[in-house]
């Protein structure tokens, strides 16, 4: 295993006949903001639980900050440097937010003299400083999620794993979370962001993997993933022309769609069509969005 923040090789999880994760292979470099994108039930949370040792992989191997899952002691030690915000959770309602953070500070082995300062810092970052002395039972779902975020940031972990961090938050909260993630990136942390919110991922992530039904459908940087644009032309004539050198052509009546063409080659395409005898009436270049790509990947399955 290399020194990647997260590395998996054919990691799989099956519950009886149900396959939650089918052979996940990926490598996330340190310092990256990585978006793990997929519809509900795609296996995103399962992947996180396997990586954190909360569930056992059926097959395959993975490492967290260089510590393989199979080495329990090393993996446990690595978890000291990992902050995790679970998707569905509640903290002990009978504790105050400050006490919850205190318990976690103790569990990760933070020196005692740093507890107060560090819990106050993360409470401020997550926006719960004013309510830090209140019992968690009185918190709204959104406040609980902010508390979970604060706990995940405790001790400045090298790797922060956020499982649907904004699911209970209002637009202001979502904006705050994006700012926090950008701050983490600026400080050199690695962030693993599980989400089904495309806009969220698009705004903060360097790289993404699109998963569904336990499989990675595509992964890479946005430039790699959204390779090439699409152009739509309205024309007559020139049916059945071979345009494969430009991209994937799709003709529907007067409309010709060419996917995967780079913007600078559009004039060449038009010239070629005219050379082949087409009468071109309009040319509409289109940028493929992450949403288009996401939906087309899910449909292709």
């Amino acid at each position, binding site marked *: 295993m290399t020194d990647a923040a997260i590395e998996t090789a054919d990691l799989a999880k099956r519950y009886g006949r149900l396959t939650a994760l089918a052979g996940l292979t990926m490598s996330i470099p340190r310092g990256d903001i990585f978006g793990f994108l997929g519809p509900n039930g795609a296996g995103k949370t399962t992947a996180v*639980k396997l990586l954190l040792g*909360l569930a056992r992989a059926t097959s395959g191997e993975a490492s967290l900050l260089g510590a393989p899952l199979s080495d329990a002691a090393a993996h446990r030690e690595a978890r*000291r440097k990992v902050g*995790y915000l*679970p998707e*569905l*959770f509640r*903290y002990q309602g*009978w504790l105050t937010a400050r006490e919850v953070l205190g318990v976690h500070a103790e*569990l990760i082995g933070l020196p005692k003299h740093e507890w107060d300062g560090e819990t106050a810092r993360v409470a401020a970052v997550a926006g719960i400083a004013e309510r830090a002395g209140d019992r968690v039972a009185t918190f709204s779902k959104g406040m609980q999620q902010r508390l979970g975020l604060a706990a995940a940031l405790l001790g400045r972990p090298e790797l922060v794993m956020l499982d649907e961090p904004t699911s209970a938050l209002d637009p202001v909260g979502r904006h705050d979370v994006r700012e926090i993630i950008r701050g983490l990136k600026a400080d050199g942390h690695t962030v693993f962001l599980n989400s089904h919110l495309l806009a969220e991922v698009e705004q903060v992530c360097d790289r993404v993997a699109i998963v569904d039904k336990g499989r990675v459908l595509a992964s890479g940087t946005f430039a790699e993933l959204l390779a090439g644009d699409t152009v739509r032309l309205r024309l007559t004539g020139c049916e059945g022309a071979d345009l494969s050198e430009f991209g994937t052509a799709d003709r529907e009546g007067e409309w010709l769609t060419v996917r995967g063409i780079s913007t600078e080659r559009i004039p060449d395409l038009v010239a070629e069509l005219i050379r082949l005898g087409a009468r071109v009436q309009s040319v509409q270049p289109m940028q493929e969005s992450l949403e288009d790509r996401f939906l087309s990947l899910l449909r292709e399955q």
Partner: protein
Amino acid sequence: MSATLVIARLMLREVLRRRLILALLALTLVAVALTAWGFSRIPSLSQRGVPIPETQVRLIASQLLILVMFMFSNVLALSAVFVASPALSGDLESGVALAMLSRPITRAQYVVGKWLGLAVLVVAYASIAATLEMLAVNAVLGYMPPRPAEFLGFLIAEGLVLLTFGLVLSTRLSGMVGGVIALILFGMAWLGGIVGGIGAAFDNEIIERVGTATKLILPTDGLWRGAVYALEPAAVLAAAAGSGPAFAANPFYAAAPPPLAYLVWCALWLAAMLGLAIWSFSRREI
């Protein structure tokens, strides 16, 4: 080790915050006060206008004390089951376990931490309730059972047995299901002890073995008999010995202390159950 203590302290803090200790202690104080008043009335009993003699006062006090302590042992047993049964399953259901177990902590530390916290509770409650009751009886009647420390040891052991059993169930079953199962088995073990006593009284080996088996499977009644024996003055033992073997079926009587081998069995049982809880929880997917 330190992670274990964090969990133990958290467990204790939960019990304190939820005011369980407060409720238990308040009701215990009421019970001690009421029973002390009752004990103080014993010397005023009379037979045909003649006040009962001092020896009889002490005899009645010893038997009543066993009954009162039976109540406290039941409160302890129920409390141990109520707090242990949801101790792990509750954390799994709420998602607290996700946040806690992703930290650098082993499953064994988590289970042992919970056990330690609850064990402190059992020891504290048993010690406070039993000591207060014995001191109160001593204050109003000048009567002290023959072996109070031994009694306390058995009472605590009985509480620990149920607490550990509840924790084992909590690794796989919801708090409500685990609690109900533990309580039913606790009741069956008590009945098993009586059945075994009846077998002994009528020299029926098969029925006697039922009693022995239940004492081994869930050693609560076996330990309770040890506690009873520690509360019995010599005069009670002598009187009971003269009244024939049928007395052995009486759940508030013990003719002899549990043999050393049985105590060793109980210690092994506790260790094995704690081991089982750790094993079961370690294999559990969160």
